[in-house]
């Protein structure tokens, strides 16, 4: 248990009071006092998100505006391309793209969302990395861009098949948005930034709202009986079923985008032979991984039994003997599948779908098979 002093030093999001009033079980997460679950519990919250709509407080994440000093957004895009292997220049106004900050070894410093707001770029980064990310941006892009941490904004994710209908009552433009559309919109008359995205595998939205209005907006959404508040527990099981990486677990400074099976996120223009190939930290190693393959790879794993295989479990090629060949980086129970799901790193030679491996759990080697991700089909509105 945390000492009282530690609890007092935890930061609070603008929705903290609402979480407590809704019966949220609060835990420390990335320096914040956050709801891990509400009275409904992780299983029901997870299934409710898949069947109706869940409201998540993701205000602990960082929101950063990159404003080009030239006034031309493409200059901010070109500058940001010095730090990420993605094609940022090609993000059209009103669109958003998934990216990673890389380091000189080709590892991942953080993963992020980048939106083109027409005159500037809008970034959403992970809570645990946000100070380092901001320093990284300042150290490398200050010549080209103003870097504003938007600390006076909250971030609410609304996810699930009824998210569109729920948001439409407060924002008439919401239904017209497609997956990864992003930009300023009025929601309930408030000045918000809305993107059609999220991290559950479901259709849904992320809504950046001024901190002072966050509780009002959350309550307006929760008035809809289809919308329930969802904690970090279900957020984790939802993203795991969706096969999405959690920074610090499935990706970190020692994994490249190719090892992490994130090739899809790196556009051809930045790869060998592309119009703007390389030019980002670790390009030599990352492009070599694209050209020649990496020695290991992130894979999905399905257990044949009922026992969850969790983060840290060692992976073996055989049911007895031998050295471990890999390790689970995320794992648990998938409520939508009603079965254990996991992901981890294995040698590329052992990464083909259907490959039989063994995960060590409490001294026993449990059979697991390399499986396609996402484990639950995503329902993005493309």
């Amino acid at each position, binding site marked *: 248990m945390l000492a009282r002093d530690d609890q007092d030093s935890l930061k609070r999001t603008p929705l903290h009071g609402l979480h407590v009033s809704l019966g949220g079980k609060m835990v420390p997460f990335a320096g914040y006092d956050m709801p891990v679950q509400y009275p409904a519990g*992780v299983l029901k919250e997870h299934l409710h998100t898949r069947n109706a709509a869940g409201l998540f407080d993701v205000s602990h994440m960082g929101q950063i505006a990159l404003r080009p000093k030239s006034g031309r957004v493409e200059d901010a895009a070109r500058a940001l391309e010095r730090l990420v292997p993605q094609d940022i220049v090609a993000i059209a106004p009103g669109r958003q793209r998934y990216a990673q900050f890389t380091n000189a070894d080709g590892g991942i410093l953080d993963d992020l969302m980048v939106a083109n707001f027409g005159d500037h770029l809008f970034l959403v980064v992970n809570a645990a990395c946000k100070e380092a990310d901001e320093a990284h941006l300042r150290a490398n892009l200050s010549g080209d861009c103003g870097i504003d941490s938007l600390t006076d904004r909250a971030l609410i994710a609304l996810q699930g098949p009824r998210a569109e209908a729920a948001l439409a009552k407060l924002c008439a433009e919401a239904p017209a948005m497609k997956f990864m559309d992003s930009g300023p919109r009025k929601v309930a008359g408030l000045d918000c930034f809305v993107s059609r995205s999220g991290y559950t595998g479901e259709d849904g939205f992320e809504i950046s709202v001024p901190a002072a209005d966050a509780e009002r907006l959350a309550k307006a959404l929760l008035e809809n009986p289809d919308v329930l508040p969802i904690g970090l527990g279900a957020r984790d099981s939802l993203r795991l079923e969706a096969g999405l990486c959690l920074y610090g677990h499935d990706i970190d400074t020692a994994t490249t985008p190719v090892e992490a099976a994130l090739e899809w996120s790196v556009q051809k223009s930045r790869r060998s032979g592309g119009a703007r190939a390389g030019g980002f930290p670790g390009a030599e190693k990352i492009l070599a991984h694209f050209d020649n393959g990496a020695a290991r790879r992130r894979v999905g794993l399905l257990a044949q039994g009922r026992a969850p295989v969790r983060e840290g479990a060692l992976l073996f090629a055989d049911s007895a003997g031998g050295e471990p060949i890999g390790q689970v980086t995320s794992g648990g129970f998938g409520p939508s599948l009603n079965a254990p799901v996991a992901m981890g790193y294995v040698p590329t030679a052992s990464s083909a779908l259907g490959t039989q491996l063994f995960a060590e759990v409490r001294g026993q080697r449990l059979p697991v098979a390399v499986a396609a991700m996402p484990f639950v089909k995503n329902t993005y509105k493309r």
Partner: protein
Amino acid sequence: MTTTLYTSDHEWLAIEGDVATVGITDYAQQQLGDVVFVELPKVGRALKKAEAAAVVESVKAASDVYAPVTGEVLETNAELAAEPALVNSDAQGKAWFFKIKMADRSELGGLMDEAAYKAHTA
């Protein structure tokens, strides 16, 4: 005549003669949240007091269940293995984990009665 005692690790024991039926308390299941998997000891296994005897896994984490007394496992709850959520719905009833033939009844002296356990979890 059944006597129910409790451990500080949140196991309960229903004692009839020299056989104790063991499970986890309602307080424990509330702390764990949704239970999705239970691993039970093999019948015939000799357990020492305080040894990890079973595992209960919630959506988020795995927790050990300790043998509250020394003895031999006589029977395990097949219904629980098939339906782990029984731990959430009926922790101190249908969701018993195993029955143990106690080797040393004097070990019961260190356990709590219901009033003491209530105070322990208050």
